[in-house]
């Protein structure tokens, strides 16, 4: 036997005053009486039991000492060896991902899981402890190890549903990290699908109960699967991407899938800023997925909502959100004495507002998104984005050092991976006129002819310049497909919006904003709940992780005003058919709750002491003890 509170055993010291008082009691008060004849008459029948009389006194002392001993033992909180061995720490993981909102288990799978968890709590033995962890895509410790049933039940009741896809790996790893040298650790997951775990648990080894103390065996996890149905259709994709044809245009991609066993017919209503702009009928066979792409929905952009009008077991995936960015026209200024190829290439860009000026009309004070200097360069260009094509060597205030003309120019090297050269092949371009130019320090040479840069990108604090060191008009580049692509790449690259969040995000993912070019220090994020949250930037980034609910999240600062759409849009999560895994054992651990003692040992000791006290009182009333 061991004691959890050995200091309580000091209560045995109370036996000393008990014995002392008993001895003092033996020293009786003396009292003189005129005669003992009447006392002898009264006590005559007891004379024959003098021995029993003495025994009664010792019986009273014995009862008192026994009572004190029981209480002292109780204060020491004794533990029998077999109780220690059977004591357990239970890590209970409750899946509160989006699929747990399915209503096949009324009122929802999550509520059924919480009910099951409550049952496990009530069946804990007195020396068991439990930790409750909720997990959608990351574990959250709801309550650390405790044996207090009420606290555990309250923690379980407080688990809120989410609309986040499932990822229990982190929670399982957390559970497996708990070990105890003397206590058995049980790990239980209540979920509607553990197939994901199975795939990732290859390193866990064979499943099965790990014998206590065997450190080589993998920690076991028991899965309790909730749910049975899978009657569900859902939106698995709703996203916006740049048009393949024009980088300044956007497309909306919608994908829906039928996860049930029967064909389903339904409509998907699409709204822009709350106004319905399309309703698409779908007929899907079991397991079938269909997609649809929308183009040119709106130049002004807006918030797009897609909603399935069918009733099924999971409502969270019947609605999705995305943000269509506003198409911003790019203001391009072409400074040239005339260049048909350039003018045509720029004019063909639908999002470009082209202004053509003569070199002598150039005004640096006028701001454009991009200025193209065609074979010219002003004395004072100013700051901004520039494409400088083969400026004259003798131009005033030319910031580049231009050397001799190059002869027999061939392209020998083209930089890979540059977005400016995406979808462009320049190796075969014939160049008739080019010169040497020294690329500034830090410039990125994109195309070169041997050691001579032909095209480089220079970025400084005041300007960004794409410099052509060859005469485009004296090459066959304008005749190639590469020419308008380079122009388009350049426009896209030079005018790409900065500081804008991704327009679509999956629930549970972290919303990250690049605010490098924004001076705002603080931002307010307002989600579907309507409660604003203030956050501060950390360097050039603002991060926000509380995206458990689907909907639109507005991000506002002093100058920033953006919207991010958060949707479930998860094929795996919409597939709500329960998948009992085999990561350690199906169902709860064997022998859970079985115990001969539902209360700690001290409880029984105190009960015994109370019964002893009652018995002593009864014996005293009947003069058995005195």
């Amino acid at each position, binding site marked *: 036997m061991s004691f959890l509170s050995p200091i309580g055993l000091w209560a045995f010291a109370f036996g000393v005053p008990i014995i002392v008082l008993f001895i003092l009691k033996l020293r*009786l*008060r*003396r009292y003189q*009486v*005129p*005669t003992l004849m009447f*006392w002898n008459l*009264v*006590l005559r029948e007891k004379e024959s039991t003098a021995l029993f009389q003495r025994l009664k006194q010792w019986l009273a002392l014995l009862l008192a000492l026994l009572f004190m001993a029981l209480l002292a033992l109780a204060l020491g909180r004794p533990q029998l060896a077999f109780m220690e061995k059977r004591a357990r720490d239970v890590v209970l993981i409750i899946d509160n991902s989006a699929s747990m909102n399915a209503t096949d288990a009324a009122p929802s799978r999550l509520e059924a899981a919480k009910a099951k968890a409550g049952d496990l709590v009530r069946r804990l033995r007195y020396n068991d402890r439990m930790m409750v962890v909720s997990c959608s895509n990351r574990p959250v410790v709801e309550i650390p190890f405790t044996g207090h049933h009420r606290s555990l039940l309250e923690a379980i009741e407080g688990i809120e549903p989410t609309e986040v896809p499932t990822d229990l790996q982190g929670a399982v790893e957390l559970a497996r990290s708990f070990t105890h040298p003397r206590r058995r650790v049980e790990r239980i997951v209540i979920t509607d699908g553990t197939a994901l775990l199975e795939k990732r648990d290859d390193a866990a080894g064979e499943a099965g109960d790990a014998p206590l103390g065997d450190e080589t065996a993998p920690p076991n996890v028991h899965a309790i699967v909730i749910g049975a149905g899978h009657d569900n259709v859902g939106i698995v994709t709703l996203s916006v991407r740049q048009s393949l044809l024009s980088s300044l245009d956007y497309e909306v991609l919608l994908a829906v899938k039928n996860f049930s066993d029967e064909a389903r017919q339904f409509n998907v209503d699409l709204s822009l800023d709350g106004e319905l702009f399309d309703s698409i009928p779908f007929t899907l066979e079991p397991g079938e997925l269909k997609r649809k792409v929308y183009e040119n929905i709106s130049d002004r952009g807006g918030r797009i909502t897609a909603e399935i009008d069918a009733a099924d077991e999971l409502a969270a995936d019947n609605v999705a959100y995305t943000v269509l960015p506003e198409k911003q026209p790019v203001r391009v200024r072409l400074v040239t004495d005339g260049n048909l190829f350039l003018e045509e290439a720029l004019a063909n860009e639908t999002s470009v507002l082209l202004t053509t000026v003569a070199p002598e009309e150039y005004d640096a004070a006028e701001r454009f998104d991009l200025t193209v200097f065609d074979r010219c360069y002003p004395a004072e260009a100013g700051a901004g984005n520039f494409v400088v094509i083969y400026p004259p060597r003798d131009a005033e205030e030319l910031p580049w050092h231009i050397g001799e003309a190059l002869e027999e120019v061939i392209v020998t090297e083209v930089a890979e991976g540059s977005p400016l050269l995406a979808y462009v092949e320049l190796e075969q371009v014939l160049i008739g006129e080019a010169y040497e130019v020294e690329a500034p320090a830090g410039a990125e040479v994109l195309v070169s002819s041997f050691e001579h840069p032909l095209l480089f990108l220079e970025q400084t604090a005041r300007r960004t310049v794409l410099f052509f060191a060859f005469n485009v008009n004296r090459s066959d580049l304008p005749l190639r497909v590469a020419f308008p692509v380079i122009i388009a790449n350049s426009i896209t690259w030079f005018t790409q919006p900065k500081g804008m969040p991704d327009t679509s995000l999956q629930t549970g993912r972290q919303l990250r904003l690049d605010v490098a070019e924004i001076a705002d220090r603080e931002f307010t994020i307002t989600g579907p709940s309507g409660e604003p949250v203030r956050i501060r930037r950390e360097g050039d980034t603002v991060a926000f992780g509380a995206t458990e609910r689907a909907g639109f999240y507005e991000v506002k600062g002093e100058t920033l005003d953006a919207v991010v759409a958060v949707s479930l849009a998860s094929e795996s999560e919409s597939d709500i058919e329960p998948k009992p895994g085999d990561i350690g054992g199906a169902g709860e651990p064997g022998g859970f709750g079985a115990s001969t003692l539902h209360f700690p040992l001290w409880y029984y000791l105190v009960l015994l002491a109370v019964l002893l006290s009652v018995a002593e009182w009864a014996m005293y009333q009947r003069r058995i003890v*005195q």
Partner: protein
Amino acid sequence: MPEGILFDSEFLKKLEYLYIVAKKVITGRVKAERRSRKHGSSVEFADFRQYTPGDDFRYLDWNIYARLDELLLKLFEEEEDLHIYVLIDVSRSMLYGDPRKLDYAKKVAAAVAYVGLSNLDRVSIIPFSEEAHDRLPMTRGKGKIFTFLEFLERLGNGGETHLEHSFKTFVHQTKRRGVAVVISDLFDPERFERALNVLKYQKYDLYVIHLIDEKEAAPDLLGDYRLEDMETRRTRQVTISEQTLKKYRAAFDGYLTDLERYCKQREIGYIRTFTSFPFDELILKVFRSGGFLK
């Protein structure tokens, strides 16, 4: 008049009062009840007393009547004078109580003696415990009361109670019979029957004045005690509960009942009193109830 601690002037006044009251009572009763056992007359003049109707005219002192116009009767030596023996228990048990039973007994004895002496009876005081101790010899005359008071004042105590042996020694030491007044708590382990029989069978007019302290009748003890017998010095360890007290009271009351019945059956005058009861009222009660001094 010398005064003792026990017998102060207040006490003496009470004695006088008792005598007066007693005299009235006795006067109404004695004249028809007192019989003389001695026949014949004596020439020895002893004293005068008032004439009461029924007395013998021959003993009237006519000279005094002629002078004083007062009827007085001459008393001669062998006129009937009562011998009163006051047996007072001086055993150690009589020291119990507040007031002590012994002090109370002394006052009662003094009162009885005073009335007897005032009545020209002869009175003797015999202390006893294990046996009859040295007595105050038979004395007559009211003026001898202080001798009695001094004797009682000096009376020591000690020894255990042996009623039968005490009374036997008394009887053997006493030639003439008379009235025996036993003042005692009667706490004799051998009880009282044989002892009282000794006096009764020896033709004494026996009166018992039984003194009890209230705490003897109803002790207020509870719990564990070591009781010590004041006479025998024996001790006994007891645990006293309510039930024990109840049994004690029953045993004590039973003893009293037995005693009272015994005295009644044998025409022994019996008066029982608590020592908290004023002694003078006790005496009056005795006289008014027709107790001794016939």
